[in-house]
């Protein structure tokens, strides 16, 4: 039983997707699926190849990525700075926090009509939507991280003569960092969602434009390529965020000595999501 499980384990997650792909290809070849509804997987691969060859796909990916990360930098930067301010000063918290929490309850996508009225349908509208979507997870998690830094550690550091800027750099920010990185991962997810919607409304370039344009000409294969590109970019952003976590929080998994194994561990962690999150928090080190 065990010997059997040993070779089946690594491939078992891939069995179902592979069967689905084979069935899909077979149905398309047998003519049961119209190419307009769902083209064969091979046709999708072919379309992706052609788009990549012509260079059009890379241009669209570049434009989309620039929008995504531009909006992320603006919204994330503002969210981080505001959370630093409200996290460190109770007076600023009293002034700002309840307003931020109020605005947070408005779904970002519900503001689209207003955004179009304000910015038209150009680049600023897309940047604004992405920035707005990214702002809240970064703000909320940074604020929460700063506030949940162990007060005993802050007291200890103060009694050892650590004050002011040094206290924030050496104690408060590292203590808040795990929570901040959780915010970054949430924000990266929201970043793609808002960008997809923003690009679908109106655009002259980008992955969203590519798919909407293909829809006009009934090129279902190109539409699917666009959807897969979004999925791939989203996954890529998540992998980068996890690598950043492993690199910035080496003390969270102390039984892993070398950096090389840190990376391999992260890739394993992509599947073993639960095991990654189950690690004891550093607060547990008290005992």
């Amino acid at each position, binding site marked *: 039983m065990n010997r059997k499980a040993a070779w089946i384990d690594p491939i078992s997650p891939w069995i179902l997707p592979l069967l689905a792909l084979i069935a899909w290809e077979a149905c398309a070849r047998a003519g049961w699926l119209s190419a307009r509804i769902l083209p064969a997987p091979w046709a999708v691969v072919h379309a992706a190849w052609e788009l990549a060859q012509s260079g059009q796909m890379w241009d669209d990916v570049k434009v989309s990525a620039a929008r995504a990360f531009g909006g992320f930098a603006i919204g994330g930067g503002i969210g981080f700075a505001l959370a630093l301010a409200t996290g460190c000063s109770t007076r600023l918290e009293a002034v700002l926090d309840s307003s931020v929490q109020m605005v947070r309850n408005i779904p970002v996508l519900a503001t689209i009509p207003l955004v179009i009225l304000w910015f038209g349908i150009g680049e600023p509208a897309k940047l604004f939507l992405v920035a707005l979507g990214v702002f809240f997870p970064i703000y909320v998690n940074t604020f929460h991280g700063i506030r949940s830094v162990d007060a*005993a550690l802050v007291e*200890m550091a103060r*009694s*050892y*003569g650590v*004050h002011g800027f040094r206290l924030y750099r050496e104690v408060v920010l590292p203590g808040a960092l795990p929570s901040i990185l959780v915010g970054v991962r949430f924000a990266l997810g929201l970043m793609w969602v808002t960008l997809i919607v923003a690009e679908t409304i109106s655009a002259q370039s980008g992955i969203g434009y590519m798919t909407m344009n293909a829809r006009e000409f009934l090129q279902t294969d190109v539409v699917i390529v666009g959807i897969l590109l979004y999925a791939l970019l989203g996954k890529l952003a998540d992998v980068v965020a996890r690598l950043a976590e492993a690199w910035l929080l080496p003390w969270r998994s*102390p039984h892993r000595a070398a950096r090389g194994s840190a990376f391999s561990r992260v890739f394993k962690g992509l599947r073993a999501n639960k095991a990654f999150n189950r690690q004891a928090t550093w607060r547990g080190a008290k005992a």
Partner: protein
Amino acid sequence: MSGATKEAAVELRSISKRYGDRVVLDRFDLSIEAGAFISIIGRSGCGKSTLLRLVAGLDSPDAGTILPRRASETRGATARTRLMFQDARLLPWKNVLGNVLLGLASSERDAARAALSEVGLAGRERDWPARLSGGQRQRVALARALVHRPALLLLDEPFGALDALTRLEMHRLVERLWRMHRFTALLVTHDVHEAVSLSDRVVLVEGGSIALDERIALPRPRSGAAADVAEIEAHILQRMLSPVEEHAFVG
């Protein structure tokens, strides 16, 4: 009190402290001679930890004065008072050396290494605190305190969470370093045995004031099983358990 010839490292004059309605310390007087090892014992909630926090400057008293005044001294690296907590309170995101260097310039690296080898942790500089045992964490905390060359070391039940054997090792280590560096040590503990085997003087606090002030002149290092240690220990324990009847015999 007999220690009049020595200069006082800390003097508390008529200190009062209350939290809400509860009076923790009531016009409390205590003078600690420089270079001595003093233990403050008492039941939980007797005010001994509050006393230590006041001396450390973490809290301020409602009335009374603490000498020397520490207002200007508590900030910056010149402060000569260092505190060891019950939990080691190491920063988990700094390695062992980084924790010892807390509050110091990185040019003090060699001093930090020396302090670590004094507590028997040479070679562990690059380990994360999460990798250390409870005893090792307290050793790092001790090195972190000693690297500042404190004149006064405050110990807030730092051995309470350790197993018996590790605790004995820590007792020996602290005593050895105390004899080497001649700082004043103020230990707060609920463990009478620990207090008697380590200190020159044991102060029992009850109901916010001193109930017993016992000098212990036994030679060092003291064996825990020695009859003279056990005798003093029994005497203090008896006093703690039956306060009213015993009161007449003391002093």
